[in-house]
């Protein structure tokens, strides 16, 4: 049973008058990220909503900003979803963590940090989830440049040769050129497919 988003907004703005809200595509955009925890806690505890179950947390990259999207349901009242979203600039992507309110956010926030680089402040253990420690970049950002797996860098050549694996001269030369130019082996992005 879905909840009409306008009514949720009305209820929220009477109870939490200082929180700025905007309806974006059937979801509530919280204009100030710092208010997120308060809104979530209110929705969880308020007897009218009882949104006790956080279904999904994920990020999205909209080029000029990053977004974190939350889908809340109620297991007690069996209604939902209420979708919340928070927008932050790419350079300073800090959002308060929802782990103190919903423990289920733990791995999902770690995943969003791993793939989008959103820093969830107050998360008990914000490490990379899928990628290894020391991995550079955030692979789901639209400006992420993928490594070219067919071109070697000088470090790769050294690693292979130390293990007695012969590297063709052409590849070695290309690696030297890349190093001289101060570039990394980054894959060429395919042109946008025509619609």
């Amino acid at each position, binding site marked *: 049973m879905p909840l009409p988003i306008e009514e949720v907004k009305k209820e929220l703005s009477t109870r939490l008058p200082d929180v700025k809200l905007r309806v974006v*595509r059937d979801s509530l955009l919280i204009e100030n990220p710092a208010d997120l925890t308060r809104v979530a806690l209110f929705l969880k505890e308020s007897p009218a909503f009882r949104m*006790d*179950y*956080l*279904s*999904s947390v*994920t990020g*999205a*990259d909209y080029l000029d900003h990053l977004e974190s*999207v939350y*889908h809340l349901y109620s*297991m007690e009242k*069996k209604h939902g*979803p209420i*979708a919340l979203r928070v927008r932050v600039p790419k350079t300073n992507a800090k959002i308060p963590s929802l782990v103190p309110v*919903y*423990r*289920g*956010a*733990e*791995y*999902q926030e770690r*995943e969003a940090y791993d*793939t989008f680089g959103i820093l969830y402040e107050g998360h008990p253990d914000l*490490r*990379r*989830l*899928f*990628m*290894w*420690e020391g991995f550079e970049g955030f*692979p*789901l950002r639209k400006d992420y440049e993928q490594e070219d797996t067919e071109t070697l860098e000088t470090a790769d050549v050294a690693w292979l040769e130390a293990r007695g694996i012969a590297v063709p001269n052409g590849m070695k030369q290309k690696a030297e050129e890349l190093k001289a130019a101060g570039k990394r082996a980054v894959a060429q992005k*395919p042109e946008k*497919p025509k*619609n």
Partner: protein
Amino acid sequence: MANTFEIKQTENPSMLEINFGPQHPSTHGVFRMNVMLEGEKVCALKPVMGYLHRNQEQIAENLPYAAIMPYTDRLDYINAMSNNFGYALAVEKLAGIEVPERAEYIRVIMAELTRIVNHMAVIGFLLNDLGAFFTPVLYAFREREKILDIFEEVSGSRMMCNYFRFGGVKRDLTAENLAAIGGIVAKLPAFLDEFEALLTKNEILCMRCQHVGVLPADFAINSSITGPVLRASGVNYDIRKVDGYSIYNRFDFKIPLGTKGDVYDRYYVRILEMRESLKILKQALSKIPQGEILNKKTLPLLKMPRNLKPSVGEAYARIESPKGELGYYLVSDGTPQPWRYHVRAPSLINLTVLEDICLGQKIADAIIILGSIDIVLGETDR
């Protein structure tokens, strides 16, 4: 490797740090646990994921909607049909496509068969972890094989089915297919009785599983646990009933619930769920109407999949997959590829409580607790 524990071995010399996996057979794939032990008792446990990470979400963001369908098979590779179901629902919600009656019935039949396949595999492997090496699992797999034969007949593949299409399914079920499914549905209760006679009151199984890995209901809800693991803790929440997606609200079935939330309840809830799935299958087989299996408006999309360009917007669709809530979050920017494609994977999120319910248990019990949570690494790591 950086030390992931707050307790250091040097502080307490009787502690032992053990690395479990990623190649250990009891971790059901390439899952790794760092375990801190005192004697045999688990003092800390940290899961490490990512050994099967393929970044499916980025792959999908560079593909047209129809081409993502085969990738969903490879999420939870035991339940390809349910994964297809969730993704098809999400795209249909995004693009506003309707599904004809017969196709809905076929979808429900396939989803419930998948649930039986999954629960048989889980129970078999759980018994493997308990030390009943491969006899129960092969009993279960003998029956599972009959269902996979049907999948092969209708979709061309036993496990990677790729059977659902937006607005319907790929191929119709023939009268022979329906008769074969009817045969399975008629024979399975006898098999389940036999299986249960061997297991449910088995003294070793009861002693090993009861009061082990207890998960309290309120903690389970707060940790976003879903599926049989949640229901074993006594929370009545099944998305088939709550959302009534597809045509589930037309069937009469119960939601089996556990009382204690231990490993035994998780085992027994799955047995009961299989029996409920058989009930749904029986009703679906008797009521399935004749008619279209694919929405006519989507026929041109089969030949020109790039023409599917949903208008700008987003959709979140969720289904009750055999492992829990499987959700798909799609954002469209009006091009043939999704701007954002996200899978809410029950296997990953159900692991949130793994450490909490393993603390204080023996290391041998940690293995059956992991087995009872039921993870598939294709979905955990994506």
